[in-house]
C-alpha cells in the first residue's frame, strides 16, 4: 500500500455521516427531470410493438397537425445526420466479433419490442405523447428470434442479415491440459443452468435535457448518466459535432448500477434536436420504456463441468456460456462482454490447474443486454459454487471444507491465477471461516436436522467470489476495446486554505462527496468540511471515465491522492523556504504545516495558501504561482476484492416459497474508507442479488412480445423481502494502490444467486431436486418438488 505521506490518516477509515444527505433530505437535490429550462420542448418516442418487423411506411401527418407539435422525425429523416451506434473492437484482438449498427431511430426494420421508430417534439410531454399515439407505422412482421437455441439453429431468421448467422462473438480459451484433468479425476460433476433476464432498474429512469446556445456555440446535455465524458466524446462522434463545443452535465443521478453507463439512442436524438431547433428539449423515459427499451442483463445458458480428486482438490474446470444479448450491442462497451466475463470468472478464488471455456454471445429479438452490477460474475460464481456443492455432495465432503481445501491461501499471495491475473492480496479462507463463525455453522446444521424431522426444510448455502475491481486501460485493450480505465482529478486550494476536488467519476448513490473527500482531507491535512468534491460537469472536471466496475474509490481515490501529492510537495517546498525546516521534515495535518518529528505546528495551511495565491510577489523566483495540481491515475493491472456470502433459507414444500432467514457477508475490499458506506453498498448489493436469485425476470413470449412492462410484472425486492445482512469485514490492503483501497460497489450483488441457490438445493436435498435455474420463484421451486415426488 502506498501510505499517505502528508496527512494524519484520520479520515480514511472514519465512520462519517454523508456530506450529500442534507441536500437530498431537505428536497434540494437536482435530478435531471427537476431541470425546467425556459421554452423547453418535450420528446416522446414511437416504439415498435413487434419483436422483428420490416417498416413499410410511416404516416405522421395526423401527428404533425396536432396543436403543440413542433416536429416529427423518423429514421429516414435523420439517417445522414446521426450515425448509428456501432461498437467496434480491434479485429486483431477480437477476430470473431461482429459489429452491428444500432440506428438511433429504426431504419428499414425493428429488432425488438420497444425499439424507437420515430420521435415527436411538442410543447409538453402530454402533447408529445398524444401525437406519438397518432403516428401510423405500417409493419410487415418477420419471424422473430426469441431465444438462443432458436438463434443458433441452421435455418434461424437473422437479426442482422449481414452477419450470416446470429453469433455476435465467440471467445474460447484452454489453459493447461483439461482433457487430462478430466481423465485423471476421481469425480466429475456437471451442471446445466439457465438464468433469468435481469435488469438494473434504477428508481430514476433514464432521461436528458439538451440545449443549444448560439452565442457560445455550445451544445449542453444534462443527462442521468454515470459517464459524463464518455457521453461527450460519443455524442461528438455520432453527431459529428466538435467535442470542445459540447458540455455534458450529470446532475444528481437516481441510481444506475451499470445501466446508465452508455450513450443511448434517445440521448443522441435529444442532442441533435436541441441543435437543430435551437431550443431546449427534454426526454424523460417512463417506466414501461425503461423496462422494455433500456438495457437488460445476465440471461445465459450455461453448461459446466468440474473435475476433482477424491479429497476434493480441483483438477480442472470447463464451461460453455451462451449469452442472449438481444438485438444490438451496448454502446460503446459492447454486449458480448458479459458472457466472456462470466466464463472467465469460473475458477474464482480456487486454485485451478486446467481450465477451458467458451463464451458465445448470440443476438435475439429482445432488448439489448448491458452491464449490470457485477456484470458476468453473478452467473460465473453461481455456476462454480453450484459445482463445488455438487462435488462436495458426491464425495461426502462438507461444502465448506471442499472450498477451504481449494482456496488461495494467504501466504500464497501474490498468486497468479490460471487466467493470468495476479491476486495481490486477499482473505479467501479467512472470510469463509469468519462467515461460518458468524452463522454458527455447526449449530445451524443441527437445527437443520431438527427442522427436517418436523417437516421443515432449512438450507445453508455458501457463495464465495474473487472480483477484479477497477479494470485498467490495458484490460480493455487486451479485449480489443479502445476505452480507458484510468481516472483524473484536479485538486485546488483557495486563498482560505479550503480545497476543491474536481474528479471524473460520477456518484449515482455511492457517496463520493463523502468518501473521496475523506481521501483528500487526509492527503492535504485539512478537515473534511474544508473539502468539496465536484463531479459530473465536463466543463469543470478533467477527462475521466465515470463510475462503474467498482472503480471509483480505487481510481478516483487514486487520482486524488496523486494530485494531492503534487500539490502537497509544492506546499511543503514553499513552506520549507519560509520556515527553514527541510521539506521532508514537514507535514500537512490538522490544518497546519507541522514539523513531522514532534508534530509542532509551524504555520496554518491557510496562511501558506494566502502567501502563495495572494502575496505572490514574495514567492521564490523558481517557484510557479498557483496552488492546484492535476493527476491522471492508471490503476494497477488488477485490484482484487473477495467475499463469502452465506444464506440460511427455509423452503415451504407446499408452496415453493423461499424465505431468507439470515444472510451473512464477510467482505474484504482492502482498506475501508468509510465503514458506514461500505456496509450500505453491501446491504444494497445483496438486495439486488436477492432479486436476481428469487424474483426478477424480464419475460418474453415465443413471439418476442415483452410481457413484463410494469413493476407489478417485473418484481424487485421490497422491505419485507430483504433481511438485515450480517456483515463482517477483513481488510487485506492492496500493495499497489494509494491507501491500499480496493473496489466494493458491485460485490454485494455478486454472490447472492450462488448462496441462495445452494441454500435452496441444500434445503431440498431430501427431495433430490436439481436446482438448475434462477430466479427461484415459488412456481419453479414447487414444480421441481412435484416433479421429484411424481418420479418417486
Amino acid at each position, binding site marked *: 500500500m502506498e501510505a499517505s505521506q502528508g496527512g494524519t490518516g484520520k479520515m480514511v477509515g472514519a465512520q462519517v455521516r454523508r456530506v450529500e444527505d442534507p441536500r437530498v*433530505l431537505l428536497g434540494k437535490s437536482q435530478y435531471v427531470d427537476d431541470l425546467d429550462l425556459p421554452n423547453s420542448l418535450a420528446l416522446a418516442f414511437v416504439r415498435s410493438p413487434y419483436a422483428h418487423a420490416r417498416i413499410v411506411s410511416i404516416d405522421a401527418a395526423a401527428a404533425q397537425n396536432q396543436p403543440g407539435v413542433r416536429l416529427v422525425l423518423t429514421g429516414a429523416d435523420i439517417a445522414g445526420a446521426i450515425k448509428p451506434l456501432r461498437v467496434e473492437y480491434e479485429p486483431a484482438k477480437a477476430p470473431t466479433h461482429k459489429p452491428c449498427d444500432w440506428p438511433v431511430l429504426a431504419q428499414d426494420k425493428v429488432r425488438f419490442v420497444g425499439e424507437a421508430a420515430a420521435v415527436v417534439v411538442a410543447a409538453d410531454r402530454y402533447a408529445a405523447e398524444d401525437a406519438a399515439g397518432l403516428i401510423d407505422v405500417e409493419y410487415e412482421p418477420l419471424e422473430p428470434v426469441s431465444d438462443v437455441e432458436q438463434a443458433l439453429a441452421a435455418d434461424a431468421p437473422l437479426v442482422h442479415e449481414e452477419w450470416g448467422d446470429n453469433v455476435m462473438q465467440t471467445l474460447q480459451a484452454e489453459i493447461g491440459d483439461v482433457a487430462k484433468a478430466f481423465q485423471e479425476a476421481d469425480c466429475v460433476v456437471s451442471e446445466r443452468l439457465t438464468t433469468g433476464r435481469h435488469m438494473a432498474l434504477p*428508481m430514476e429512469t433514464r432521461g436528458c435535457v439538451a440545449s443549444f446556445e448560439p452565442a457560445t456555440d455550445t451544445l449542453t446535455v444534462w443527462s442521468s448518466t454515470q459517464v459524463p465524458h464518455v457521453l461527450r466524446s460519443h455524442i461528438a462522434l455520432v453527431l459529428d459535432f466538435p467535442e470542445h463545443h459540447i458540455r455534458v452535465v450529470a446532475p444528481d443521478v437516481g441510481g444506475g448500477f451499470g445501466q446508465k453507463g452508455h450513450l443511448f439512442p434517445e440521448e443522441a436524438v435529444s442532442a441533435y434536436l436541441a441543435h437543430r431547433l435551437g431550443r431546449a428539449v427534454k426526454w424523460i423515459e417512463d417506466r414501461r420504456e425503461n423496462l422494455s427499451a433500456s438495457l437488460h442483463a445476465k440471461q445465459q445458458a450455461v453448461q459446466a463441468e468440474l473435475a476433482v480428486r477424491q479429497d476434493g482438490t480441483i483438477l480442472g474446470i470447463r464451461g460453455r456460456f451462451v449469452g442472449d444479448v438481444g438485438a444490438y450491442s451496448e454502446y460503446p462497451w459492447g454486449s458480448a462482454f458479459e458472457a466472456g466475463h462470466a466464463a472467465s470468472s469460473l475458477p474464482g478464488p480456487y486454485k485451478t490447474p486446467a481450465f477451458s471455456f467458451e463464451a458465445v454471445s448470440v443476438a435475439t429479438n429482445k432488448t439489448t443486454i448491458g452491464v449490470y452490477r457485477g456484470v458476468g460474475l453473478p452467473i460465473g460464481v453461481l455456476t462454480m459454487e453450484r459445482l463445488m456443492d455438487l462435488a462436495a455432495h458426491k464425495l461426502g465432503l462438507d461444502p465448506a471444507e471442499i472450498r477451504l481445501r481449494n482456496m488461495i491461501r494467504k501466504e500464497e499471495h501474490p498468486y497468479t491465477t490460471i487466467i493470468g491475473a495476479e491476486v495481490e492480496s486477499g482473505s479467501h479462507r479467512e472470510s469463509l471461516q469468519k462467515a461460518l463463525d458468524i452463522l454458527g455453522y455447526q449449530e445451524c446444521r443441527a437445527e437443520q436436522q431438527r427442522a427436517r424431522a418436523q417437516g421443515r426444510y432449512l438450507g445453508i448455502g455458501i457463495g464465495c467470489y474473487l472480483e477484479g475491481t477497477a479494470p485498467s486501460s490495458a484490460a480493455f485493450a487486451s479485449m480489443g476495446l479502445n476505452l480507458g480505465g484510468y481516472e483524473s482529478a484536479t485538486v485546488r486550494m483557495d486563498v482560505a486554505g479550503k480545497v476543491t476536488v474536481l474528479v471524473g467519476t460520477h456518484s449515482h448513490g455511492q457517496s463520493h462527496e463523502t468518501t473521496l473527500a475523506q481521501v483528500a482531507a487526509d492527503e492535504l491535512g485539512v478537515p473534511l468540511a474544508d473539502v468539496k468534491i465536484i463531479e459530473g460537469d465536463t466543463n469543470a472536471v478533467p477527462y475521466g471515465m465515470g463510475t462503474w466496475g467498482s472503480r471509483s474509490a480505487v481510481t478516483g481515490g487514486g487520482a486524488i491522492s496523486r494530485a494531492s501529492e503534487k500539490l502537497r510537495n509544492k506546499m511543503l517546498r514553499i513552506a520549507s523556504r519560509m520556515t527553514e525546516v527541510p521539506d521532508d521534515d514537514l507535514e500537512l495535518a490538522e490544518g497546519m504545516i507541522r514539523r513531522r518529528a514532534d508534530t509542532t505546528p509551524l504555520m496554518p495551511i491557510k496562511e501558506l495558501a494566502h502567501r502563495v495565491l495572494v502575496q505572490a510577489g514574495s514567492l521564490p523566483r523558481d517557484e510557479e504561482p498557483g496552488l492546484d495540481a492535476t493527476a491522471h491515475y492508471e490503476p494497477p493491472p488488477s485490484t482484487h476484492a473477495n467475499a463469502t456470502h452465506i444464506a440460511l433459507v427455509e423452503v415451504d414444500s407446499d408452496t415453493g416459497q423461499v424465505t431468507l432467514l439470515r444472510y451473512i457477508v464477510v467482505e474484504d475490499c482492502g482498506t475501508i474508507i468509510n465503514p458506514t458506506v461500505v456496509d450500505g453498498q453491501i446491504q444494497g448489493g445483496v438486495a439486488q442479488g436477492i432479486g436476481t436469485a428469487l424474483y426478477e425476470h424480464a419475460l418474453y413470449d415465443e413471439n418476442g412480445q415483452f410481457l413484463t412492462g410494469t413493476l407489478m410484472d417485473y418484481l424487485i425486492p421490497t422491505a419485507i423481502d430483504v433481511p438485515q445482512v450480517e456483515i463482517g469485514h477483513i481488510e487485506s490492503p492492496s500493495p499497489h494502490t494509494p491507501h491500499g483501497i480496493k473496489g466494493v460497489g458491485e460485490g454485494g450483488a455478486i454472490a447472492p444467486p450462488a448462496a441462495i441457490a445452494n441454500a435452496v438445493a441444500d434445503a431440498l436435498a431430501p427431495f433430490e431436486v436439481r436446482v438448475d435455474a434462477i430466479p427461484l420463484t415459488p412456481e419453479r421451486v414447487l414444480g421441481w418438488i412435484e416433479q421429484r415426488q411424481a418420479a418417486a
Partner: protein
Amino acid sequence: MAATQFTEYQTIRVRVNGHEYEREVPVRRLLADFIRHDLGLTATHLGCEHGVCGACTIIMDDESVRSCLLFAVQADGAELQTLEGLADGDKMHPLQQSFWDNHALQCGFCTSGFLMSAVDLLNKNPRPSEEEIRHGLSGNLCRCTGYANIVKAVQAVAEQSQS
C-alpha cells in the same frame, strides 16, 4: 383518439406546505406533474407513474397518497404536504435527521417517498414493531439501500418518541 378532448381546463385551489395556490390546470394534468412542474416542488419524484414504486408519495388531508395516481383537479380544496414542507426551516424533522444518522439513503431518488410514507406510518402507529415498519413501507421501492437502514431510521424515531 383526438387530443382536443383533453384541452379542458379547471381552476383549483390547494394548500401546499401551508401556502395557498390557485391555478388553472388541464383536467387531465397529474397531481405529481402539477406539484413538480407547475409549483416547482421537485422533491416529489416519479419512479413509475403507475402506482407501484411509491416515489411520488405525498400527504393529502392527513393521508399518504400517490400523486402519480391522482389528477390535480382531484386535489381541489385539499391540504397537501410534500418533502419541502417537512423540515422546520433548516431544522430537520426527526425522520430526516434519523435518515441522515442511519445512512438510510444512497442515490436519494426514493427518499422523499419513504419519508412521507414514514410520516404517515408514525402518525397512525407511533410505536410500530420492526415488522410493522417493514409492512408499512413495503409499498415504497428502493433499489440502492436494501431497506435495512431505512427500517432502522424509522425505528429510531419511534423509539425516541416513546422515551
